[in-house]
């Protein structure tokens, strides 16, 4: 039997294979990493009816051209991007069947920042410390390159129909809930109040380690400019550089840092932060641990809800370029994954 693959004929910058990352290495200086928008991973898993831990392609800003070696299923989630298969438009936030030899073309982002290409069975690239996630800042893995042939895991759902999802908008900024961290008290009440009243935008200067925030007004200096001992930091932390400029940490952040952090964006709002394109307005509202817990939902619970909300994909007949593929697959082709 031959393992199905996806050949890469064209690719955007910094496209990487991502799953939910590798917890357990913090003590060794390696942050968890993993998909920047974990909701997008959950949506992809729901659309394909598969495990939350499977790997997808994360595409910041631009996708690429991909050719399937065998019948496959794909799902497209996260920031909507232009997408076609053999020239016919493909719906975003949906799963689709791809016949062998068909060309999937994913272009520029329409809104948001990170789009995701999921595949039935997940990408089967090698694991390192139990994860397939590239962690470029940590020196693990590499961006996907033209000519790569990405292996695909066995897909037990090839006979399933396409599905679609109405997703919660997280691509247009808004207010993010902020929890206290180790250094919050170093910022005086006036500074914190001004922070909460300020409109921020992400600058284009950023990557999966973190991104700088722009705003109008004075820097957010701490009351004590004394150097603090380095302490653990996590994605969603907002640290102030020596100049009092805010910088938000993302999945590939360093594990410890000495710059003071005014707070931590709650995990449920990190996707909104990640998906804000440069220029989109962001605000931060301090919340308490108790309040946040009342509103917090685990990723498993989110994935289960998405699975329950998915519905059959309805497409206009003139867009169904792969109609023949559907008929074949429902009739007889199941063979390769069992041989």
């Amino acid at each position, binding site marked *: 039997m031959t393992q199905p693959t996806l050949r890469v004929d064209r690719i955007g910058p910094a496209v990487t294979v991502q799953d939910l990352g590798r917890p357990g290495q913090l003590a060794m*200086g390696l942050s968890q990493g993993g998909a920047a928008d974990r909701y997008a991973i959950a949506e992809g898993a729901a659309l394909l009816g598969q495990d939350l831990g499977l790997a997808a392609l994360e595409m910041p800003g631009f996708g690429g051209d991909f050719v399937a070696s065998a019948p496959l299923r794909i799902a497209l989630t996260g920031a909507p991007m232009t997408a076609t298969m053999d020239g016919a438009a493909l719906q975003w936030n949906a799963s689709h069947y791809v016949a062998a030899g068909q060309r999937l073309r994913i272009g520029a982002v329409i809104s948001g920042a990170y789009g995701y290409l999921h595949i039935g069975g997940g990408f089967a690239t090698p694991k390192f410390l139990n994860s397939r996630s590239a962690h470029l800042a940590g020196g693990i893995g590499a961006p996907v390159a033209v000519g790569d042939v990405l292996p695909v895991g066995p897909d037990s759902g090839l006979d399933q129909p396409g599905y679609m999802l109405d997703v919660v908008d997280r691509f247009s900024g808004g207010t993010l809930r902020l929890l206290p961290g180790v250094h919050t008290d170093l910022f005086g009440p006036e500074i914190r109040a001004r922070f909460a009243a300020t409109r921020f935008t992400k600058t284009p200067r950023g990557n999966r380690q973190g991104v700088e925030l722009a705003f109008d007004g004075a820097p957010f200096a701490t009351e004590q400019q004394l150097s603090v001992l*380095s302490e653990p930091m*996590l994605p969603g932390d907002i640290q102030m550089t020596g100049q009092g400029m805010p910088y938000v940490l993302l999945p590939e952040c360093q594990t410890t840092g000495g710059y003071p952090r005014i707070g931590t964006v709650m995990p449920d709002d990190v996707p909104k932060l990640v998906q804000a394109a440069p220029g989109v307005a962001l605000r931060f509202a301090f919340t308490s641990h108790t309040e946040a*817990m009342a509103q917090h939902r685990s990723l498993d619970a989110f994935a289960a809800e998405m699975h329950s909300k998915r519905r059959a994909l309805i497409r206009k007949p003139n867009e169904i370029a792969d109609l023949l593929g559907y008929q074949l697959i429902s009739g007889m082709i199941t063979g390769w994954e069992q041989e």
Partner: protein
Amino acid sequence: MTVDAPSLHDPLIRPIGLTGVLFTFSDVLTDDANHMALAFRAQIESQAIAGVIETSTSLTSTYVSYDPCAVGLNPLIARLKDLLSQTKPSSLGSPMGRRLWRIPTVFGGDAGPQLAEAAAMAGLSPKQAIDEIAATTVRVLTIGFAPGQPYLGPLPQNWNVPRQSGLTAQVPAGAIAVAIRQMVLFNAASPTGWRLIGQTAFRVFRPEATDPFSLRPGDEVQLVPVSQREMSALRARQDGSNGGASCEGGS
């Protein structure tokens, strides 16, 4: 706001976001606080506590990452405090045992252009500085910032020199830089505010290796002065010797 300084048995306990809690044993680096942070982490790791995802240490703190849907913050803190009451700093030691590493290092010259400056701040000549560092067995106080990257110390009190005010744009992988009684051995080329005093061919993170992280918190390290010529020979070796370092102890 005034807060009593944290102590070994009355640490400062602070949540970080929704998924972390930090126990801090001192607001300045002390040997006791560092021992306590490591010992407390080992104690937590020896238990299967529902909801705990992972743990780590910084210089004087122990960090616990947890799933708030599996365990509440307050019950978790109560459980951890109970564990802390059973933890003694003398129970230091990673489960695998402590090891002693000897790592060849070129000091000064092009490899360590700020040696003379750092030595002067420590009240020493460059030669005395090398001798003092070579004679000191330092510990891996913590690993952090970048994969496998150790903070080594403490050096003698006269090495309590501040970071420089500006940043050095880049030091190479394997570089040794010094500040506040500690040395960092860099994982990768990096900007730093610490003074560059030497260079090793030791890789602290080797993704291709079975055990990708060379050092563990609590390991002991001696930097062994070698000449630039010896370092070049070490670099040329293709036998996986990791910069000519030797390691004894552990299990």
